[in-house]
């Protein structure tokens, strides 16, 4: 290489490095806050925030709100990165048990929680369960994305069933007949994020089984109640379902629904929503119902979404003011309404809101709120529960039994896993 060309290489490299170091955008005039949200299944929901809520707030206060969308399933990774580096968004959406994992880095928003509760008809009990830690609000619950029963009215009618069965045993009898007619059920037993827990926790609870006592220490999964729930799941799988459910992730039951392969599943409202848009004939024969009850009652999973503010944010106060504004009835009601009732409010003030009349088949989602709980209930939410969920302890306990293992063995395995998780606490 000649001398001049060596120098040229260096010059180019230095010029490039210099250009990269230059700030590529000027700082905005007023404060800017960023809210991180997982991409919504309902596109208009995200658009309503970007095109209506954020511009309105900027007009009113001069504060610019950036709505940063992250893909489904990547929120925990994004949040963990923000927390570890203490840089990034100011507010974030939080799902399920994450407010409890991140509690030390979340701003106390008790004033907002109390105020909204008073103004908007009071919180559902599960709202407090999802947002408070030791009586303090660490996140403001926004909604539940409930997981309920989706069923084919035409095929159920073929065997003389007009209303959705009230108990798990009744549902089993129906499923047996429908599978014989080549219309099996499909309930996820694989490693998805939500559709597995969506029916397995309620099933376990409705037979009286629990992972851990409310003291958050005593593992009680090894019980007759758990055994009964597992025995039920095994026969429910064998006589009513497709074998493939063992591998299913969250998209699988939706695909099977639109392929007209299954007659009943447990899913969010998205099945009906998308059917109405893309498969109108299927939508006509799709209905939704609350989960069946077991010997110990009827239960649902709280698939909660809440909003929290990072306490290391340089715009704490601006974020706090924005969250208060956002949760005000005027904004909140309109945001809910933009997605019909896909996001079910956790406040009683919306029990009779017009959003429920848009699609009456969604009303069971409202009625299910009273019996909904976070995964792992009645144990207090926290690290250990999150570990149990991430390791699919309960899901795999059921799945192994459905695949052929004995009830005793699967309970023993789950019990030892849970004891390990809770011992390390």
């Amino acid at each position, binding site marked *: 290489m000649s001398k001049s060309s060596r*120098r040229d290489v260096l010059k180019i490299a230095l010029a490039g490095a210099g250009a990269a170091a230059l700030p590529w955008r000027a700082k905005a005039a007023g404060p800017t806050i960023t809210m991180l949200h997982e991409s919504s299944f309902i596109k208009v929901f995200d658009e309503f925030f970007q095109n209506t809520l954020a511009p309105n707030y900027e007009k009113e206060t001069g504060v610019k709100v950036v709505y940063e969308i992250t893909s489904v399933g990547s929120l925990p990774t994004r949040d963990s990165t923000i927390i570890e580096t203490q840089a990034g968004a100011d507010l974030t959406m939080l799902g399920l048990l994450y407010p409890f994992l991140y509690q030390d880095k979340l701003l106390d928003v008790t004033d907002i929680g109390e105020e909204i509760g008073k103004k908007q008809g009071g919180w559902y009990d599960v709202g407090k369960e999802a947002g408070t830690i030791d009586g303090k609000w660490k996140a403001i619950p926004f909604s539940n994305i409930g997981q309920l029963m989706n069923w084919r009215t035409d095929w159920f009618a073929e065997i003389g069933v007009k209303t959705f069965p009230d108990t798990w045993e009744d549902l089993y009898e129906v499923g047996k007949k429908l599978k014989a007619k080549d219309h099996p059920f499909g309930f996820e037993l694989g490693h998805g994020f939500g559709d597995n827990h969506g029916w397995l926790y309620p099933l376990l609870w409705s037979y009286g089984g629990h992972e851990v006592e409310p003291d958050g220490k005593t593992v009680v999964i090894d019980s007759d109640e758990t055994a009964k729930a597992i025995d039920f799941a095994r026969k429910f799988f064998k006589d009513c379902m497709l074998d*493939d459910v*063992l591998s299913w*992730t969250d998209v699988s039951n939706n695909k099977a629904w639109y392929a007209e392969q299954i007659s009943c599943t447990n899913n969010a409202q998205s099945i009906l929503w998308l059917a109405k848009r893309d498969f109108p004939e299927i939508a006509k024969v799709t209905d939704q119902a609350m989960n069946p009850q077991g010997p110990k009652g009827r239960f649902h999973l709280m698939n909660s979404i809440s909003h929290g503010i990072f306490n290391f944010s340089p715009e704490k106060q601006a974020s706090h003011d924005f969250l208060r504004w956002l949760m005000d009835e005027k904004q909140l009601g309109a945001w809910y309404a933009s997605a019909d009732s896909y996001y079910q409010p956790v406040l009683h003030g919306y029990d009779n809101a017009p959003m429920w009349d848009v699609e009456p088949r969604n009303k069971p989602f409202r009625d299910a709120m009273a019996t909904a709980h976070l995964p792992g209930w009645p144990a207090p939410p926290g690290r250990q529960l999150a*570990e149990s*969920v991430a390791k699919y302890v309960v899901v795999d306990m059921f799945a192994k039994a459905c695949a052929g293992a004995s009830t005793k063995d699967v309970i023993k395995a789950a019990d030892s896993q849970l004891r*390990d998780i809770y011992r390390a606490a």
Partner: protein
Amino acid sequence: MAIRAEEFVGIAPRPRRPFTLGEWVDRGTVFSWLMMAPPILFILAFVGYPFCYGIFLSLENRPVAQPGTFIGLGNFIKEAHDPVFWQVVRNTFVYTGVATLLKMVGGLGLALAMNQDFKFKNIIRALLLLPFIVPTVLSTVAFMWMLDPAFSVINRVLIGFGWPKPGPSWLGSPILAMCSIIAINTWRGLPFYGITLLAGLQTVPVELYEAATIDGASGWQRFRYVTLPILQPIILIVTLFSVIFTFADFQLVYVLTHGGPQNATALFATYAFDIAMGSGQLGLGAAVALAMLPALALLIVAITLYLRKKS
């Protein structure tokens, strides 16, 4: 030294040229270090630092959003008691071992075939690289549809031949699920082997084959005693890379099965990710990820030593 120093007193010092930055930079050693500095810094920042931080994390009880406490080998001990961890170890070894073997044999066959003369040779060689070029997530989603009993072309064909409906549950049975991910990984990794070995094949001098033919060697003997020995170092290097990629595979399993059914396809990377991100146990997650290090390190050392001996 002092005695001999007198002898040099009379020598006039050479006039030193003034120091210029330009000339200093132009010195071979300086210039090469300057050129090396960016990649070295890059590797230190994006590989070295995370690696050391990973080791540090694995020795801590470190929940996300909370300060860590040093617990020594506590995480590794907890892992050793976790039956799922051992299942993950078994899965990863089976997955890596079988997939690497298939890729090696298949890739060699592919390279030998591609080394022949035929029509549209260059286009077909380029097309073969497709599975390797297509982003893993995309091709995996395609396989997701192909393995879905409701839509599977494979099952449709099988049913056409009389297989009872709805056909095998490719991802539902633990054994079939493992076979499926191995098959997809092999499909994706084959071109890497094929093309690299093809490059190796083209370096084999024709004279050697001619000499072997004159000596009366059969086709198999030419392959066994000429081709294979020359290709051996390349096969080892490709295997080394392939084992590393396969061992640490994440995307394929994450998209297709997320470790299911019942952890039958969970690998080190997916399990570590679930623990670290799903349950916020950064320390334990790092420990699971690091647990694959000794096996990988041993393999790398063994192959490197072997190559050194050869050369």
